[in-house]
């Protein structure tokens, strides 16, 4: 990697001033499990790396009447092991537990998980400058796209790699961002952006903005949730496809379904079609199946990723059936 200056941030407010407004100049580091790979492969060559771990208080999970607030520095291992999260926000605990390996979960943070960069193998190759890196070609289009998007692609076709993001969106999470002009809070769902908005970024962050916390509203009564992730290698792997499902139940009827997919689109992908097929229905095998089918009706597979269509269909079905049994 290139040399850089390493600066410990003292507090959140200081971070925007330490950051450049040019993406290539400065990088924030939390657990470093993603950033280090990028530095070593010369995908990022910042002049300065700003350490967030030196900021006190960002590694706490706080519960109050409004719900749960999770600091950006909370590790994935802590999220997976948190009793309240396991009980009331099951999908998040399951998603966090499914990330990578125990070693990475012990240091990887929630903020880093949400802001991590794509895993596309063209992007990660040091000698390939694709569209995402400022080049003019998305090599996945004509090339090897087994792991790429079936929804929302163009002009780049990455899939968003985060496991926690679909889970948090399914739970209605908001995210707090601190920038040079103070802070802003938005639905996590609105945090992520499609490549036609900006092919080089995955979210709304400006170079000098930092994610400080995620807030989960108090779960509605009778909400049940689960995360189903399919990976080629069980020991550690990103999702081929995953589904975060959170259902507000009313007796045997699904009052409101939240179905958010991972591994299928450049952003965590809310399947409005699946939700429509579930909302207001008693969840039977037939309804679950219809939800899966509705979800993939508009899929646009590439040359090598057609398998993601039945896979998405089947695991939506599976997630729905898990929640009612």
């Amino acid at each position: 990697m290139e040399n850089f200056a390493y600066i410990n941030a003292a507090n959140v407010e200081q971070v925007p001033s330490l950051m450049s407004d040019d993406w290539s100049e400065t990088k924030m580091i939390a657990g470093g499990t993603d950033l280090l790979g990028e530095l070593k492969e010369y995908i990022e060559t910042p002049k300065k790396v700003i350490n967030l771990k030196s900021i006190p208080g960002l590694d706490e999970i706080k519960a109050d009447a409004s719900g749960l607030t999770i600091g950006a520095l909370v590790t994935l291992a802590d999220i997976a092991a948190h009793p309240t999260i396991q009980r009331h926000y099951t999908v998040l605990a399951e998603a966090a537990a499914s990330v990578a390996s125990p070693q990475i979960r012990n240091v990887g943070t929630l903020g880093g998980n949400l802001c991590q960069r794509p895993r596309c193998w063209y992007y990660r190759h040091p000698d390939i400058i694709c569209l995402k890196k400022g080049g003019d070609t998305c090599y996945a289009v004509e090339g090897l796209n087994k792991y790429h998007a079936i929804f929302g692609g163009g002009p780049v076709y990455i899939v968003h790699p985060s496991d926690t993001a679909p889970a948090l969106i399914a739970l209605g999470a908001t995210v707090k961002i601190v920038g040079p002009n103070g802070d802003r809070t938005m639905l996590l769902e609105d945090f992520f952006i499609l490549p036609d908005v900006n092919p080089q970024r995955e979210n709304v962050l400006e170079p000098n903005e930092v994610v400080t916390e995620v807030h989960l509203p108090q779960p509605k009564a009778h909400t049940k949730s689960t995360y189903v992730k399919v990976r080629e290698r069980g020991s550690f792997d990103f999702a081929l496809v995953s589904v975060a499902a959170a259902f507000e139940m009313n007796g045997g009827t699904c009052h409101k379904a939240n179905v958010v997919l991972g591994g299928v689109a450049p952003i965590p992908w809310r399947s409005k079609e699946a939700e429509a097929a579930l909302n207001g229905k008693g969840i039977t095998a037939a309804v679950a199946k219809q939800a899966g089918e509705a979800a993939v009706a508009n899929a646009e597979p590439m040359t090598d990723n057609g398998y993601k269509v039945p896979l998405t269909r089947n695991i939506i079905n599976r997630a729905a059936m898990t929640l009612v049994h």
Partner: protein
Amino acid sequence: MASWGEAKDSRLIGKRVSRLSGTDKVTGKAKYTFDINRPGMLYGYILRSPVAHATITGIDLSEAEALPGVKAAIPLIEPGKRVRFEGQEIAAVAAITPDIAEDAVRLIQFDYDELDYVVDVESAKEEGAPQIRDDWKSNQSEPRVDERGDIEAGFAEAAVEVEATYHAPVQTHVCLETHGHVAEWDQDNLTVWASTQAVFGTRQNLARHFELPENQVRVITEHMGGGFGSKFGPGVEGVTAAKLARKAGAPVKLMLTRKDEHLVAGNRPSMTQQVRAGATQDGRFIAYDMSGYGTGGIGSGAGFTGPYVYHVPNHRTKKSAVAINAGSARAMRAPGHPQGAFAMDSLMDELAERLNLDPLEFRRLNSDSDARRNRIRQAEYTLGAQEIGWHRRNRVPGSGTGVKKRGIGMGCGLWGGGGGAGTQARVTIHASGAVEAVTGTQDIGTGIRTVIAMIVAEELGLRPQDITVKIGDTEPGLASRGSGGSQTIGSVAPVIKTAAMAAKRKLFGHIAPLVEADPGDLRAAGDKIYAQSDLRLSIPWKEATGYLGMETISEGGEWDENLRIGDVAGVQFAEVEIDTETGLVQVIKIVAVQDCGLVVNRLTTESQINGAVVMGLGYALLEERIMDDQTGKMINPNLEDYKVPGTMEIPEIVSIAYDTDRKITGIGEPPTIPTAGAIANAVYNAIGVRIRELPITPDKILNALG
């Protein structure tokens, strides 16, 4: 004539003995090449071609040389020459830290004219494809044709036929310890710590390269983190380390990166074969017509076995290699066999199904033409079938109900592994009672160090930990062959055994007159020497060796043909569970029945089988070098997208050592051969759709299930 004696008389041989170096390894005390640090040592780093095919027009090292901390920089290719694959060596530097070395490499200016490349095997075969090898007429080698019997008559006799195409990808070795060396010069004497499977081979290679007499080069490999066939010589990186060290006048450590490892350090060639085969109504495999090729990158060899294991009287095979712009193949754990076995065992199942025969019965009818091997294999079939519960398999493939479907399949393999002459060894007994066994072999992780100690200890009536084993060093000058081809134990054990016997004879001869016994009446056991005919005459080992006074006994050994055997047979059974909604294959259980000859250390034998099965499982389900046409690059040169099995993938492995012979043989390679075929057949048995292409990943299963 030397023999290993009867099982009932063995105290150690055949028992489970923990590795002597085990504690050192788990505590980090064991020093691998990576861990060697010499005073004033520098770090080497290699500049590699970023492109698949180009003519180098100029290399300018001056900026790199000017970087503070850089002590040497050398070109590794002459301008005007071609690089023919991504990763090929261009230049190298040595610097005082690894980071400076890497920075310096990025300062090397080099110019090249890019040439058209081809990394796809099918395109490489086409006319007009960029020519890769100067010594071939096209990118496809002259096919080797082999014909036996009468192929047309065979097909005429066949009642059923199968036609199929099978494919296996390029697999890389993924040695846990990457290739590398620490090189140090003392005037014209070169010492190299090497992660190698052949200390003597490496010495010879370096001696030739630097035009030195062999005794001025010393190669040391105390502990080694896996080679699997890819580490038989210094390679470009070893020679480079020595060149840099000489130029800088300081020791240099140069270890490959994980990416280098995938790109340049060898691989198992791919295999694509089209086969037409026939069997008679009464279940005889009668005709086999196969045409196939593989790619060994820029290398020349891509052979694979076929026909294999099973006897077919009429066959015709046509095999060739296809060159592409990618790193060269090297020997890899049972070269040519796993790919051949996967295709052959898939084919056997397909034929059996056409005949409506149990695939095991069909195999029984057509196994090895070699009588001994056939006898062993038939017994292995019975043992394995019983352990896996063969009767539980689906009579109708895919007929299981439910989302998760189970299936059972089997596969076979064979291997040589008998070892050979050429190892020199000495067993030394000191007056203090200390015993040393010295030979020039190396422990590449298989446990030969412990086996040597066990053999000497058995002979001298001591415990394995009483024996000091000195291996992995050319300095004593006791040559041994490289550790490859599963030949180590068959080459080393007989020599150690006869050396220990000779040393014991000498010791008995020395002390017999002193204790007034007949040397032929003396025995060694339980840390004592005693007389067989009069058990009252019993002397503790150390007291007995004390009689040596100023003398030391040091005896060499002879390789003895009668102590070893080759040509082993292996059979494996796999049970898998397939999630038909996700396409995931979980291997539930593998039963590996392996002809092992005489088992010396049951524990390390089982470790070899376990490791081989895991490697075979990776080949079946996960591993694949993926080349990108648009860029000429390997697109997964890491351990994220090149997927090797982790703990969650590893099933229950039941290894059954079939050890009826009292002669030694090597089994490092054979148990990796049958695994992929057994898993592929189990997958078919589970879902009723055949996947003829490895690795069997969820996308393939889902596409096949439709």
